[in-house]
């Protein structure tokens, strides 16, 4: 099965002693890899607004019941989940907003 090899390595990718960290969604503890990449946002004005786009990558099976509007706490910062993208190889990217 295409991509199946990835599933066997997910535990390594989401090792919270390495790249991942523990986040809280409701009462659940979920391992996520958090990213807040730089983004220059066009807002219709003369200059762009510099900020980050926060996303959290999680093991899909850990976030099956998580839907848009849920809150997630990462590093004591509370975000709202505004989108989820399952990559169909076992990983889901949660799009976040503060």
């Amino acid at each position, binding site marked *: 099965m295409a991509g199946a090899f990835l599933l066997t390595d997910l535990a390594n990718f989401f090792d919270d002693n390495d790249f991942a960290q523990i986040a809280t969604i409701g009462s659940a503890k979920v391992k996520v890899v958090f990213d807040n990449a730089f983004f220059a*946002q066009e*807002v*219709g*004005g003369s200059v762009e*607004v*510099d*900020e980050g*786009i926060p996303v959290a990558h999680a093991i899909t099976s850990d976030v099956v019941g998580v839907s848009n509007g849920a809150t997630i706490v990462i590093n004591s910062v509370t975000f709202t989940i505004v989108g989820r993208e399952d990559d169909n190889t076992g990983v889901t990217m949660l799009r976040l*907003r503060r």
Partner: protein
Amino acid sequence: MSHVRQQIRERIAANVTGLTTTGSNVFASRVYNISTSELPALLVYAISESSERDSFLSTNGLERSVDILVEGYATTSANLDSVLDTISAEVETAVAGDPTCNGLCRDIFLSSTDVDLTPDGQKPVGSIKLTFECTYRTTTIAPQTAI
């Protein structure tokens, strides 16, 4: 002495400094990106100007109309449009409170308003663009002096 257009731009930037929402986050003719930590903020520009002389071959009066753009930026989780409208009210009041820009111009009024809201990033970000049309006069040979 600087061009009257510059004096007007600087006067308006000063008039909108210290407003309740945007405070001292006022930047004149900014060309670099702005960070969310600097918001809410105002950016002030002189974006275009048209002029008409009083008479043919005259070296005397020149009536000028310059568009001064005051851009408000804000980011907030909710009611972003209300924050931008508050910024608009504060700026309009401040500009109207000095209708001659300390004697530099004959008239100034708000000629257009544009609002943009975007959902990307950590929080929604928006801008409100207030264009003020400002009429002033100089001679053709002395653009540094308002008449």
